[in-house]
């Protein structure tokens, strides 16, 4: 069983080897070492771009050109470019990122490649692309300062199927000649024709593509005065034309004043001086037209021998750095031949250059999207639906619906949202204004503090604190009488009751007056006395600071009016001793308590 397996495997490998040989040969025209793995051939072992192999360099060049907007049909062009040492040096400026497997070309490389292509095109292409004259660039003086002439031209342009009309102006007598070349533009090839007579530098002749004969068209002339109404369209012009000519082949002369036969920047002021009659191709969007270098080039082109195709992006391309993976680069270049095949299927002999550019751009975009989105489908046929009108219509409807829904949402909630947003904005402005005022005040304070002296500062702060204290003392006075804020004050009052001190001995609060009927003494003074006239005695303090108590005995029925007076003056020293001793005992007790409490705290904390 394993032997059969080995045989089958060997057979498959042989088939693969033999099949891949032609592919290798084909690939070597562009570069690469054959097989399916081109990456090592694009990048050297040192991680740099391989510029030794011209085929690889061609790949790089064609990729860059495709990104610029030019597709090379004739690979001899890129072969010549790749053989150039300076080109190789520019290609070598690309950097390879081994992690991402990408190559990045700097802007200068892209610029150089574009320049080289333009140089080649100038030297080898059978035609040159020129811009028609945009209507907006024509000075008003060319219209004989008549607005109706300008309006007429504008209307004719709008009516033209190709967007290009051939017109001529005669300044002196307001003649306005119109040639309906626009509708036949697709059938005409313009060829440079150098004509030295009459002071013209060069001119362009038109030839019919199908017959290669000189093209002939009717031309119409109308002399428009300032009062005439503007021409509405081609039919109106033909109807109102005062002269009708059948143009000769030489008529279709579109004068180019520049040495390089450029129609890009015709100086209309020079054209319309005096009685000079010139014909110019005017368009609304200054689109490009082909002008063949020679008649033979024109013939070759009609036989499909074009070497380079440009997209509409080519002329407006802004150089920038290009970054691409090796696989995408190879895939893009390999698919370009299919792109050209697809393009050639779509275009016909009378396809306008601008249409060709647009077609090619769309094909390349589709290819890019395929490669970016598909991933594994690279290398397949390139099928592009050029007619995007259905898709565009559908997208337009979707856009309209979404816009409608959004408008509905915003109209209902928009007002609320707008008002909220407006309110927030107003709030923000107000806060900003207030913050500005506050910061301004702070700046004023800072400035004043900078100039104030220390003494002034001290006086001001003291007065400030005094006034603050005075203000808050009123609050404390009120708070003392309000429960529960009054509780501390009540506790203080209770404690203060116990702290009433006996008066000093010098204070005389009491003096004995009257007769002593009976007295009991223990020394110098009597302790208990019975005095006559209770009203003359009252409780108080003796002159030695001892308390004296008065107990009145009044019996009116018996006629008794006596007072028993107890004077403790003789016990003054005993009272002093008692107070001192009790104070000491109390202090000692507190000390003992302190030790116990601190010890207890220590245990609690531990």
């Amino acid at each position, binding site marked *: 069983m394993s032997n059969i397996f080995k045989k089958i495997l060997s057979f498959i490998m042989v088939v693969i080897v033999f099949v891949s040989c032609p592919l290798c040969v084909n690939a070597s025209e562009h570069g690469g070492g054959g097989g399916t793995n081109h990456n090592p051939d694009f990048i050297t072992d040192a991680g740099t771009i391989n510029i030794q192999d011209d085929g690889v360099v061609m790949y790089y060049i064609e990729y860059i050109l495709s990104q610029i907007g030019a597709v090379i049909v004739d690979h001899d062009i890129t072969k010549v470019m790749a053989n150039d040492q300076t080109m190789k040096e520019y290609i070598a400026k690309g950097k390879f990122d081994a992690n991402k497997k990408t190559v990045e070309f700097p802007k200068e490389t892209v610029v150089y490649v574009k320049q080289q292509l333009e140089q080649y095109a100038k030297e080898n292409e059978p035609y040159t692309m020129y811009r028609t004259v945009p209507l907006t660039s024509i000075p008003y003086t060319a219209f004989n300062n008549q607005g109706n002439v300008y309006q007429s031209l504008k209307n004719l342009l709008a009516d033209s199927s190709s967007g290009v009309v051939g017109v001529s102006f005669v300044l002196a007598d307001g003649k306005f000649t119109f040639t309906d070349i626009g509708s036949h533009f697709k059938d005409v090839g313009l060829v440079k024709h150098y004509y030295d007579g009459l002071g013209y530098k060069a001119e362009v002749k038109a030839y019919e593509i199908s017959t290669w004969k000189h093209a002939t068209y009717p031309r119409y002339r109308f002399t428009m005065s300032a009062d005439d109404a503007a021409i509405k369209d081609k039919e109106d012009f033909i109807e109102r034309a005062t002269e009708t000519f059948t143009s000769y082949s030489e008529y279709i002369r579109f004068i180019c004043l520049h040495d390089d036969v450029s129609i890009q920047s015709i100086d209309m002021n020079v054209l319309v001086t005096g009685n000079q009659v010139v014909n110019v191709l005017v368009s609304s969007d200054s689109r490009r037209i082909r002008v063949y270098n020679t008649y033979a080039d024109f013939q070759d082109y009609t036989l499909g021998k074009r070497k380079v195709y440009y997209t509409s992006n080519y002329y407006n391309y802004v150089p920038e750095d290009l970054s691409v993976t090796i696989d995408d680069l190879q895939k893009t270049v390999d698919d370009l031949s299919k792109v050209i095949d697809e393009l050639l299927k779509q275009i016909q002999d009378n396809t306008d250059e601008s249409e060709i550019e647009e077609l090619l751009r769309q094909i390349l975009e589709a290819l890019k999207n395929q490669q970016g989105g598909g991933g594994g489908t690279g290398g397949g046929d390139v099928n592009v639906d050029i007619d995007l009108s259905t898709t565009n219509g559908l997208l337009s409807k979707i856009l309209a619906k979404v816009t409608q829904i959004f408008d509905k949402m915003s109209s209902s909630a928009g007002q609320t949202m707008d008002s909220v947003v407006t309110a927030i904005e107003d709030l923000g402005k107000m806060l900003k204004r207030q913050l500005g005022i506050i910061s301004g005040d702070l700046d004023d304070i800072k400035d004043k503090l900078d100039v104030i002296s220390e003494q002034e500062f001290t006086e001001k702060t003291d007065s*400030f604190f005094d*006034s*603050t204290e005075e*203000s*808050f003392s*009123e*609050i404390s006075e*009120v*708070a*003392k*009488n*309000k*429960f*529960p*804020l*009054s509780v501390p*004050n*009540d506790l203080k*009052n*209770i*404690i203060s*009751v*116990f*702290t*009433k*001190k*006996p*008066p000093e001995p010098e204070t005389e609060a009491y003096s004995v007056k009257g007769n002593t009927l009976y007295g009991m003494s223990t020394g110098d003074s009597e302790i208990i006395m019975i005095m006559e006239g209770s009203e003359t005695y009252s409780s108080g303090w003796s002159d030695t600071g*001892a*308390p004296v108590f008065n107990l009145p005995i009044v019996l009116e029925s018996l006629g008794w009016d006596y007072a028993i007076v107890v004077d403790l003056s003789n016990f003054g020293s005993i*009272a002093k001793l*008692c*107070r*001192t001793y*009790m*104070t000491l005992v*109390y*202090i000692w007790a*507190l000390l003992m308590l*302190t030790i116990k*409490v*601190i010890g207890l*705290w*220590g245990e609690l*904390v*531990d």
Partner: protein
Amino acid sequence: MSWLINLIKILLLKMINMLPDDPFSQYLAELDTDFFAYLNWIIPLDNCVNITIGWVDCMLIALVIILIKEYLIDKAIDFILSLTSFFKFLV
């Protein structure tokens, strides 16, 4: 700035006036406490109260110091001792 202080004062007064009156002050004011002076002539309650107030203040300060000592200084001493023992180990 004074307007701010006045404003605060007015606000606080308004808030405080919303509280009820103290019920104890009236009765405390009516008490006849003169005899405490006579009592203090023999038993020094006035001295004892003053001593007690001072003692309570001192005890509170001592409590704060004890707490600081326990939760800051003892921890620092333990940390220093641990470093010392670490260096001893190295040596």
